[in-house]
Structures are given as structure tokens and as C-alpha cells.
């Protein structure tokens, strides 16, 4: 088993494997999105307090969760790359970053749209939204640092260290923002607290699964480009059918 593991962690094997997996992930993501939206809009009942507006959560909550998960996954890959000096992990980390940042943007955007009918304002400095904004800054810092170092090896390692420092900081930031928020009596509206309708839960989890599959598909597609760029001088790249034409 151990041998197989290392085999797939080499860019050469991974490139082909990723190419075969992407359509599957993309296809199932599309199906799950459709199913999730169907349940969310046609089966899940209207919420007593929030009316139809609550349906934003089917995209908002999965996007927020993804943005945080992806940062952790990215930091994990970065740490692996830094400790074991594996090239592929560092490439994965930099392939995940843009997707994570975009999920953060989606989460902020949908949060604002949900906030307008609920709070009467587009932006509320509540703990979750503020943390999400800071998370976006962390993603942007990672991407900017990686982009401004020309030498790939140094870029990978420097950005990895930043991601690790960031991931240690995320809980501290989250805690401090929450603390700050309670001090200022900020509004935190909970989704109609008592019990979520079963269909609502189903819709949310389906959407979350769809987001996961989508993120994996996009990250894999991006990492394939990165592998091509980094390894362009090697023989195996020259022998790829898509390069030979």
C-alpha cells in the first residue's frame, strides 16, 4: 500500500490520474447542484419567520463552510510540502487557494444579500461575516505572496509558511472577533433556532457535497496546469499526447 501511495504523490502519475478523475467529480457536482437546488426550492417549505429569503442559506452556509475547510486543507497541504519536501503538496496548496478565495467571496456576497431583508442593511459587523472578511484577506495574502516570488521553490515554501501561520491564527482571530462582537452587542440572528425542517437539512447537505465535488474538480484541473508549467522541461511532459498533438 505504501508504495502505491508514493506513486500517486508523484506529479507524473498524478497528472494522468487527475485527468481521469476530473470529469467524474465535475459531473457528480453538477448533478448534486441540481438535486440540491430542486430540494431547496421546491420541497423545502417556507420559513415562518424569514419567508422565502431563508433559501439563500442553501448556498451561503455551504460556501462559508467550504471557505474555512479549504483554508485548512490548503494549510495542511502546505505543511506536508514544507515538512516532507514533496512538490505535489505545494502545488495542491496553490491550486486550492483561488477556489477558497472565491468561495469566501460567494459567502460574503450571499451573506450581504441575506442581511438586507433580515437586518435592513447590506453589511453587518457580526462575528461570522467579519471573520469571513478576514479569511478573505488571508487568502489574498497567500495568493499575493505566491505570485510575487518568481522562483517557484521559494514561492511554495514561503507561501506554505504563511498558510501555516494563518491557520494557527484563524481560531484566535475568530475568537477575538466574536468577543469584540458580543462587547458591542452586535446582532447575530440564528436561523430559526428550534428545528430545521428535514428537507432544509437535505438541501443544505446536498449543496455542501456539490460544493466539495466542484472544489475538488476545479483544484485538480488547476493543479494539472501547474504541473505542466513546472515540469515543462521534463521528458514525460514532451511525450504527453496533448503536448505532441
Amino acid at each position, binding site marked *: 500500500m505504501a508504495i502505491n501511495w508514493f506513486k500517486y504523490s508523484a506529479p507524473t502519475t498524478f497528472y494522468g490520474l487527475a485527468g481521469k478523475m476530473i470529469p467524474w467529480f465535475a459531473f457528480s457536482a453538477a448533478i448534486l447542484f441540481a438535486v440540491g437546488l430542486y430540494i431547496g426550492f421546491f420541497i423545502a417549505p417556507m420559513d415562518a419567520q424569514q419567508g422565502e429569503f431563508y433559501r439563500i442559506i442553501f448556498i451561503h452556509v455551504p460556501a462559508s463552510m467550504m471557505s474555512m475547510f479549504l483554508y485548512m486543507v490548503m494549510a495542511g497541504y502546505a505543511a506536508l510540502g514544507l515538512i516532507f519536501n514533496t512538490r505535489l503538496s505545494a502545488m495542491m496548496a496553490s491550486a486550492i487557494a483561488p477556489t477558497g478565495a472565491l468561495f469566501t467571496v460567494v459567502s460574503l456576497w450571499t451573506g450581504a444579500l441575506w442581511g438586507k431583508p433580515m437586518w435592513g442593511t447590506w453589511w453587518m459587523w457580526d462575528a461570522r461575516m467579519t471573520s469571513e472578511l478576514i479569511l478573505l484577506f488571508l487568502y489574498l495574502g497567500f495568493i*499575493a505572496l505566491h505570485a510575487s516570488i518568481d522562483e517557484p521553490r521559494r514561492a511554495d515554501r514561503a507561501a506554505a509558511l504563511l498558510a501555516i501561520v494563518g491557520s494557527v*491564527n484563524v481560531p484566535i482571530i475568530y475568537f477575538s472577533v466574536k*468577543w469584540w462582537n458580543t462587547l458591542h452587542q452586535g446582532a447575530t440572528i440564528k436561523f430559526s433556532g428550534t428545528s430545521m425542517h428535514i428537507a432544509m437539512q437535505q438541501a443544505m447537505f446536498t449543496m455542501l457535497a456539490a460544493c466539495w465535488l466542484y472544489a475538488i474538480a476545479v483544484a485538480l484541473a488547476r493543479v494539472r496546469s501547474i504541473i505542466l508549467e513546472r515540469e515543462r522541461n521534463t521528458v514525460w511532459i514532451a511525450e504527453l499526447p496533448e503536448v505532441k498533438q
Partner: protein
Amino acid sequence: MKKSSMLDLLVLVIRRDLVLAMRRRADVLTTLVFFVMVVSLFPLGVGPELSMLRKMAPGVLWVAALLASMLSLGRLFSADYLDGTLEQMMLAPQSLSMLVLGKMAAHWMVSGLPLVLMAPVLGLQFDMSVQALGVLIVGLLLGTPILSMIGAIGAALTLGLRGGGVLLSLLVLPLCIPVLIFGTGAVEAISSGLSVVSHLSLLGALLVLSFVFTPWVTAQALRISME
């Protein structure tokens, strides 16, 4: 020949950086003037009502201190990097983290401490009460070293990069948010008659955490950047 201990080396680095700072006084003064100027601009921007200024004061002073320390961070390692001293530091027979700690300490004495000393004067411009000023100073005393320490990581990561200064702020500012929150929170707490112990002890905890981890992380960042 006498061998030096770890402590000797720490003292040596701090003394060296202080001497250098004294001979390049303009750099130190620029940071301080920047701080004073940014703080003085706020009343011009938002109007002179004292009640509002009093409420804003801790936030304004803290944010200005944050920006001012970003300004001086770019120089923390770059001069030593350009003239080769950093190479020699990495070859020192003591741990690099220790040398980094020395540089952080010197950086704080040169760019953090003057801000702390200047803060009460600026606080008076904003009509802060004596109590609030006292808490502000304690908060800054605990918080500015953290800014130097977290900033050092960013400075090490952006060493020798084009446009490093702006990038440095982009990397470091989000990481400094907890310091800002607890620092300003303490002043607000005392102004509304609450206890400041929890805020200040959280700041203290952050200081201890940074003291333990950031020198090592910065040393790793320097190794990455020097390769």
C-alpha cells in the same frame, strides 16, 4: 579567545541595531512623525466634536500605531540582507531564533517604544481621561511588541521582493487584528466602567505566545528567503 554565550549574542545584536538606529536617526523619526500625523489627521477628517473623538481615540491610536510599525518593518531585515550580514547571522554558532529575537527586541525599542511614549500626548488631543490613557499605554506596551514579532515573519517572507512593503502590510495586518481588538477593547472597557483585566491578560497571553513561536517561525522564513 573567549567564546560567547547565547545571551552575549542576544545583547550584541540588540546593541548593534540600536547603535545603527542612532546613526540613522532620520528613519526612526520618520516613523514617529508618521504616527503623529495620521492621528492628527483624524479630527480634521471627522470633525472636532470631543465626545465623538473621545470614543474614537483608542481605535485611531491603535490603527495608526499598527500602520506606523508596518512602515518600519520593511527595514527590519532588508539592510542586513543587502550587505550580507544576514548570511553571517545564519552562520552564527547559536540558534538563528535567538538572533531574530534580538532584532525583534531592537526593532520594538526603536519603533514601538517611541509610539508608546508619544501616545499619551496624542491621547490628550482626543480628550481622553487619565484612566483611559493609562490603560491605553499598558495595552500599547503589551501589544506593540506583538506587532514587531508578527511583523518580523512578514518581513522575513517578503525579503528582497519587488514591492515588498505593500505586500508586507497585506500579509501582516490581518494577523494583527486580535491585538487591535483586545488593545482597543481594554480602553473601551475602562471608559464604560468595566474591568480591563480580561482584555489585558488576553493581550499578555498573545505576547507570550508570540514570544515563544514567532522567533522560530521567522528564522524558518529567513532560511526560505535566503535560499
